[in-house]
């Protein structure tokens, strides 16, 4: 009967007597247990081992315990107890050190939580690193990302070896529910292999099928787990049941597992991304679309190999494209890139900048704590020297210091976690949840682990640095140097000055960076969006195809809402547009200028296009440059008129007026009667963001010439816009009780939201640099204050010999200013590097950096001056008699 090796090891833990008495029997029992477990399967075996290992070690320990005398406390333990006592005896020092560390670690953890949740943590799908996004780009036509078309999808799937599966998705909204109790839901339209690509099959039911991807055959839906739980009471028999979506009965075919979220999507229902046969034709390959492609790399394939295969495949396809030359001229390419990286691209620079700033803050904090230690070490130098003289080993002294720094950093990290919890809330207030994956920012296990690692690392770095310094300076001189009561050891003083200079330099880098970010934000906030955003209510309505099939029905909806809203008190002007500035949609299209075919090599430039009705321009207060606005009643084919913005006009007709000129919708000229006559030129607006450079150009067509089921309502109000939301909702429901209005909010709020990637770094940067300044002020005060205390006697002698207090004061202020100058000189090169990094990552920063730099320099100087003024004045007030008598 042989038990396993591991069991023998466990047995060996028991005292010999116990083993002699029961060892054989224990083996027998374990063998029997193992046989029984094996019969039950692997889980039982694992459970048995877990139980046995835990039980046997515990039993062995308890069995041995009484045989031994009570354990003596560890040497380290006395160190720790001594340290705790000493820290408790100097609460000022302890609190300052823990507080500083807590602030700095907390700041780092906060940013780390964001960096980890957004940039580092893999997407929540199996093999998430194999997911790639493929998008069409036409850089020379000013369209950097045009998603992927339905044709792209049907052409590529199964034909690119490096892609195991290809799928397409599009975000959308739908009206769900019965008449009278409809709700607007975010939905996502997806191709059949979408969930296979992600590697997350439905928990109930099935995925979509190919035969459900055509208009008319697409009345199926897959629910997310929260929606299923909320709306269907988590009923397992829900598959096969019908719900109403956009007025149609739709059959539920599947339910997704709990916790499924796709990137930052808020969709709770998935529908087929259906299309018609003509959408799939190769001629529609480049018809810009709002759909996006996600694919899973085949085993062994890389993004690079997939890229070269897609390039090769596209090249063969384009050969038969009559417009191939134009497409190639636009710089067309389908880019294959990691889905995660692409999704968080916009947030990456800001996050990295913030993490760097937090790291700088931590350095400043560490320097400050190191400084505190040095100051205190000065007063303990004799104690240490005595300890060494009577035979304490270096390792023992280092151990004591390490115990102290580790204890402090552990406490700091624990408090830092609390700070970080507040910090994450603060980030949320700043709008971090609107960053990609931003709603998932949390302090999780990894962050805790990072805190623990930081605590250990900080404790070690601080401890070793301080121990090294103390051991060197206590090598015999301390006893003498201090008893003489003269100036502090040169080395110690120099170390303190070097620390202060580092601190000033780092703070200056932080401060100038924050000043640059803040002035950038300020400049953006002052940027005119091209219209007046105050008191402007905006909302979106999607008219379902079922009930608005004809242009006439769309027109009549628009007419009715105009008429009814016009009579609401508080509405000064009201308009409708198919897109509004800062809506988040930046889809562009082409316009062709009549009589001006593209010259060889010239590319069609994409421009924003809007279809408007009502008093859109008046409501938005977009200024008129020349001509006239589109009238509220320009309806029907007779009125083929349009308005262009100044950017478009100056590019299309650089010499002469745009008025009376003609253009065609789309990339090619049509029949003469299809041309639109330009009747007015208006000011340019910012469509994508306030930081958007000018020049994309825009064309405004009458809504009656370009019907669209998705429309925005804009109302210029004479009262607070939010006060009118209820009226708007009531009127829309009055016209169509099944129609919800979406995203009703004031334009200022939209602008505020659009600034999130600029605002968070600026605000956080200012917070960080304020803390850094405070620490630097404390550092200056500490270093100079200590210098004054150490040189009391010298100062006393000098005053006794006739030095004027002003001279003494100047001497110390002079020291402070010299340190400041050295720190700033060092900091300047740092801030130059920081500025370059900032500019490469964050858009919309102002050109010159002298202003922010000057502000940073003067604030820095003021803070340092304040920090050294107090000790300098104290020095000047030293009474010679007292100073000399004290020694």
């Amino acid at each position, binding site marked *: 009967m042989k038990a396993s090796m591991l069991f023998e090891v466990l047995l060996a833990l028991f005292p010999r007597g116990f083993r002699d008495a029961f060892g054989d029997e224990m083996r*027998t029992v374990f063998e029997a247990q193992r046989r029984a477990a094996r019969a039950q399967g692997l889980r039982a075996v694992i459970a048995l081992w877990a*139980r046995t290992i835990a039980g046997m070690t515990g039993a062995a320990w*308890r069995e041995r315990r009484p045989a031994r005398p009570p354990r003596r406390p560890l040497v380290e333990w006395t160190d720790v107890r001594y340290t705790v006592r000493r820290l408790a005896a100097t609460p000022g020092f302890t609190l300052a050190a823990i507080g500083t560390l807590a602030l700095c670690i907390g700041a780092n953890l906060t940013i780390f939580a964001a960096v980890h949740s957004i940039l580092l943590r893999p997407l929540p799908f199996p093999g998430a690193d194999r997911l790639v996004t493929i998008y069409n780009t036409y850089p020379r036509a000013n369209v950097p990302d045009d998603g992927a078309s339905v044709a792209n999808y049907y052409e590529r799937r199964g034909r690119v070896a490096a892609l195991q599966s290809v799928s397409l998705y599009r975000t959308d909204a739908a009206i769900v529910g019965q008449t009278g109790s409809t709700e607007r839901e975010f939905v996502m339209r997806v191709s059949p292999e979408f969930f296979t690509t992600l590697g997350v099959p439905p928990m109930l039911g099935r995925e979509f099928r190919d035969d459900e991807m055509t208009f008319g055959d697409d009345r199926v839906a897959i629910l997310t787990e929260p929606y299923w739980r909320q709306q269907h009471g988590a009923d397992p028999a829900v598959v096969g049941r019908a719900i109403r979506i956009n007025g149609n009965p739709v059959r539920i075919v599947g339910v997704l597992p709990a916790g499924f979220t796709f990137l930052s999507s808020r969709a709770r229902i998935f529908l087929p991304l259906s299309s018609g046969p003509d959408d799939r034709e190769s001629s529609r390959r480049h018809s810009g679309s709002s759909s996006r492609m996600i694919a899973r790399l085949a085993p062994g394939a890389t993004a690079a190999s997939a890229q070269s295969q897609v390039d090769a495949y596209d090249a063969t396809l384009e050969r038969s494209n009559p417009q191939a030359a134009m497409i190639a001229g636009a710089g067309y390419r389908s880019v294959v890139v990691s889905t995660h990286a692409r999704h968080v691209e916009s947030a990456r620079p800001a996050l990295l900048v913030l993490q760097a700033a937090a790291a700088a803050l931590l350095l400043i904090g560490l320097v400050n704590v190191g400084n505190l230690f040095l100051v205190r070490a000065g007063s303990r130098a004799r104690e240490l020297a005595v300890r060494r003289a009577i035979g304490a080993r270096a390792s023992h002294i280092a151990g004591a210091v390490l115990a102290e720094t580790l204890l402090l950093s552990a406490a700091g990290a624990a408090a830092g976690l609390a700070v970080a919890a507040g910090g994450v809330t603060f980030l949320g207030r700043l709008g971090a949840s609107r960053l990609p994956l931003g709603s998932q920012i949390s302090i999780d296990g990894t962050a805790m682990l990072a805190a623990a690692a930081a605590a250990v690392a900080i404790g070690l770095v601080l401890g070793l640095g301080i121990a090294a310094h103390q051991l060197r300076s206590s090598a015999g001189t301390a006893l003498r140097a201090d008893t003489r009561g003269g100036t502090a050891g040169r080395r110690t003083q120099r170390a303190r000055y070097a620390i202060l200079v580092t601190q000033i330099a780092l703070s200056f880098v932080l401060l100038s960076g924050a000043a640059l970010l803040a002035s950038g934000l300020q400049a953006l906030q002052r940027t005119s969006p091209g219209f007046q955003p105050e008191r402007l209510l905006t909302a979106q309505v999607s008219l379902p195809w079922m009930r608005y099939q004809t242009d006439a029905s769309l027109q009549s909806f628009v007419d009715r809402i105009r008429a009814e809203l016009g009579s609401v008190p508080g509405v000064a002007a009201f308009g409708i547009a198919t897109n509004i500035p800062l809506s988040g949609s930046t889809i562009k299209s082409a316009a062709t200028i009549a009589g001006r075919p593209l010259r060889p090599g010239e590319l069609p430039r994409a421009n924003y296009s809007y279809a408007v009705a009502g008093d859109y321009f008046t409501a938005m207060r977009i200024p008129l440059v020349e001509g006239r606005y589109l009238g509220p009643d320009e309806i029907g084919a007779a009125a083929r008129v349009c308005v262009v913005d100044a950017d478009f006009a100056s590019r299309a007709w650089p010499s002469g007026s745009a008025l009376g000129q003609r253009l065609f919708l789309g990339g090619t000229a049509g029949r003469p009667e299809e041309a639109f006559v330009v009747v007015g030129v208006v000011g340019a607006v910012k469509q994508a963001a306030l930081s958007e450079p000018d020049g994309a150009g825009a064309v405004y067509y009458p809504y009656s010439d370009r019907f669209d089921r998705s429309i925005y309502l804009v109302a210029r109000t004479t009262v607070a816009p939010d006060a009118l939301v209820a009226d708007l909702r009531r009127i829309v429901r009055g016209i169509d009780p099944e129609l919800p209005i979406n995203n009703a909010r004031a334009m200022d709020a939209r602008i505020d939201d659009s600034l999130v990637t600029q605002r968070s770094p600026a605000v956080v940067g200012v917070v960080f640099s304020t803390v850094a300044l405070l620490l630097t002020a404390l550092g200056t005060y500490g270093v100079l204050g200590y210098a004054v205390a150490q040189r009391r006697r010298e100062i006393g002698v000098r005053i006794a010999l006739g030095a004027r207090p002003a001279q003494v004061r100047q001497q110390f202020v002079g020291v402070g200013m010299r340190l400041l100058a050295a720190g700033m000189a060092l900091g300047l090169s740092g801030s130059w590097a920081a500025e370059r990094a900032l500019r490469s990552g964050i858009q919309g920063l102002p050109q010159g950096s002298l202003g922010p730099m000057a502000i940073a320099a003067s604030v820095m100087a003021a803070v340092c001056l304040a920090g050294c003024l107090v000790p300098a004045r104290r020095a000047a007030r030293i009474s010679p008699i007292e100073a000399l008598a004290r020694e």
Partner: protein
Amino acid sequence: MPDPRDHLPLKPVDLELLLALADDDMHGYGLVQAIAAHTNGLVQLDPGNLYRVVKRLLAEGLVAEAGQRSAPDEGGERRRYYRITPLGGRVLTAELERLRLLVNAPGARALARRWTS
């Protein structure tokens, strides 16, 4: 004669073990199985803890060795059996009586009614 009450209250595992031996003499693995069965699998003893208890009960004289016998199963392997001593029996009885009084106390019954309804 030693007073069984000196041994009270029994530890839960000791009680389980004595209860098992009250039925029949058993070897080590038999005890593990009996205790697991009696506690619905809640108490699964590993050999180490089992024999710590056995050692203690032997030392206190509540349990004694009952010689080696070949087990009916497992190919006739010889195993050491344990039996409950007369003192062990009295201690067990006293403990069960103590528990009975405890469970039947009016307060305990009221409590049980309150929390089970």
